[in-house]
């Protein structure tokens, strides 16, 4: 299997005006195989978007990086150096979080396709319009959309346009950062299903970021759960859902009515630790009902016997 995305001890921080650094990811190890749909799940602020931006090549200029990130074996983040030549739009594309603000209000939808296809593939205007129509019909939109300005479209339509845009340049990886967070709840499932169907059809690797374990479980092959800037559990979707080994994953599952276990876990109240100072203990310790002495040392990702399932908890055997 070819690895589409591989992160090794990836740390990303943001420096503020007072020169203080918030470490949004504190050492992420991740491998995504070509053609699979991979989900990153976690609560808000755990560093999902930061990771997604790093893969899509859109970290802001004040972000600091350490560790390594490979995209199809090309080293895009090498410690503090970042080089996305030949990656953005050619290998990886992005479905951004807010459809309303992610389309240029001064350009028609057709112009968006034209500039992308011209710059990425050197296509002419008429060719790019043809391709745009093709992909728009794949997402269920007519060609009348091409003439329209973004603000004329509903949120759902804008999100479909963004899916079509990401597919149109025939990239190998699509990063979708909470693509459904700002649209109506009843449309969410529809859009996610469409996305998952299309990535399978075009054999694109999907990296989906979401805080919603339920929808992740429906469309993803594998899941990584993040907490406080690290992956704390990763494995096949079925195995994560049926046998979560990390107390935090169990807690997430418990909050989903259909997926939760019968005897739900009672987490202690609390919040993820501050990401400004470094710490050596398990990041979930303050909220963990299972914590023991040993938890003052952060566990590594431990393989769960005979399954491709890793978990960052000393007591994973007792959790499920």
């Amino acid at each position, binding site marked *: 299997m070819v690895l589409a995305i591989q992160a090794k001890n990836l740390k990303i921080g943001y420096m503020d005006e007072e020169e203080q650094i918030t470490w949004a990811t504190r050492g992420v190890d991740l491998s995504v195989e070509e053609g699979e749909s991979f989900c990153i799940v976690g609560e808000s602020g755990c560093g999902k978007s930061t990771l997604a931006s790093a893969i899509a090549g859109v970290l802001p*200029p*004040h972000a600091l990086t350490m560790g390594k990130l490979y995209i199809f074996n090309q080293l895009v983040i090498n410690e503090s150096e970042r080089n996305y030549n030949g990656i953005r739009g050619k290998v990886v594309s992005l479905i951004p979080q807010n459809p309303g603000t992610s389309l240029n209000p001064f350009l028609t939808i057709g112009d968006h396709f034209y500039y992308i296809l011209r710059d990425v593939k050197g296509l002419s205007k008429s060719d790019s319009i043809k391709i745009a129509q093709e992909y728009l019909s794949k997402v269920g939109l007519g060609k009348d959309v091409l003439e329209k300005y973004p603000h004329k479209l509903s949120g759902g339509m804008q999100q479909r346009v963004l899916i079509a845009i990401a597919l149109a340049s025939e990239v190998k990886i699509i990063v979708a950062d909470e693509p459904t967070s700002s649209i109506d709840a009843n449309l969410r499932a529809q859009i996610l299903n469409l996305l998952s169907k299309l990535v399978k059809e075009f054999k694109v690797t999907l990296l989906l970021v979401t805080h919603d374990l339920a929808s992740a479980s429906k469309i993803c092959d594998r899941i990584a759960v993040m907490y406080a800037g690290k992956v704390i559990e990763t494995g096949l979707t079925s195995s994560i859902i049926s046998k979560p080994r990390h107390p935090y994953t169990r807690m997430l599952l418990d909050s989903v009515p259909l997926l939760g276990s019968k005897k739900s876990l009672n987490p202690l109240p609390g919040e993820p630790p501050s990401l400004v100072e470094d710490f050596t203990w398990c990041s979930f310790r303050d909220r963990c009902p299972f914590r023991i002495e040993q938890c003052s040392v952060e566990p590594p990702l431990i393989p769960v016997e005979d399954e491709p399932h890793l978990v960052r908890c000393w007591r994973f055997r007792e959790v499920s």
Partner: protein
Amino acid sequence: MTLPSLYSRIMRRNLRRTRFKIGVALTTIIVILSIIAPLIAPYPSEGYGYVPANASERKLLPPSTQFPFGTDALGRDLFSRVLTGTRTAVIQAVSVILISLLVGMIIGVCAAYFKGLIEVTLNYFTELFMAVPSIVIALFLRLTIGQGLHVVIISLVIAWWAWYSRIAYVYAKSIVELEYVTLAKLSGLSALKIIPRHVIRNIFQALTVQAISDLGSALLEASAINFMGLGLPPGSPEWGVILYEAITERGIEAFLFSPWLVVFPGLFIFMTTLGFSLIADPLREDLDPRLRRRWKLWF
């Protein structure tokens, strides 16, 4: 936010910037000069426009050690005149901005707070006075109430308050919509209490920054009015007036042959304005939290 804490934060954040430092230095010098100018001017009475007894022997002398900036057409020491003008400059700029700020803030905030007919009327007047050109008002006042500092200040305030009213209105509008202001209203607190406590306090910083950055423009316009002969009478210790006299005495020849008459007073206007602007510039950027981030062309 209280004024001292605002001040110390501004200083802490900006004193690293060279341009801000230059601005603070220039402004400090000007303010100090405005206080002590009459004491250090070599010919204090000439600074106030009195023609010396021996005037006929020293008309239009170029700069020398005795007269660092030369002398004017009436034989007065230009250095003393320019130095004495510092105080007028500061008084003009500060009083125009302070009065405009006060009037504009009250009207803008009332428009936002009271809504309805009051809002419409006050906004109408704001719109109207934003369009009025100060220099024509100055001309009118000059023709009716004569010359003097009050002409400069009144005409500039008439032309200027509306800009603060507009800004205050826009900021206050977003604040009066907030829940706690509604709650305060419902709990029967009077407008006289709510407005200063909740509204003005929250828009104060933005307005102050705007006011500081307008000090320079106020000085430029005030000296332009004086330069046109619409404000202070001849002989007044004011830079625009000095330039006006230089030119009205003998037309452009006056400064073609005695350029010091033009160079020095203008240089002082420029330095003072520059000082104000250099201080205001980083403040304005600080006001926009998004711009505080380290943006750049990153792709």
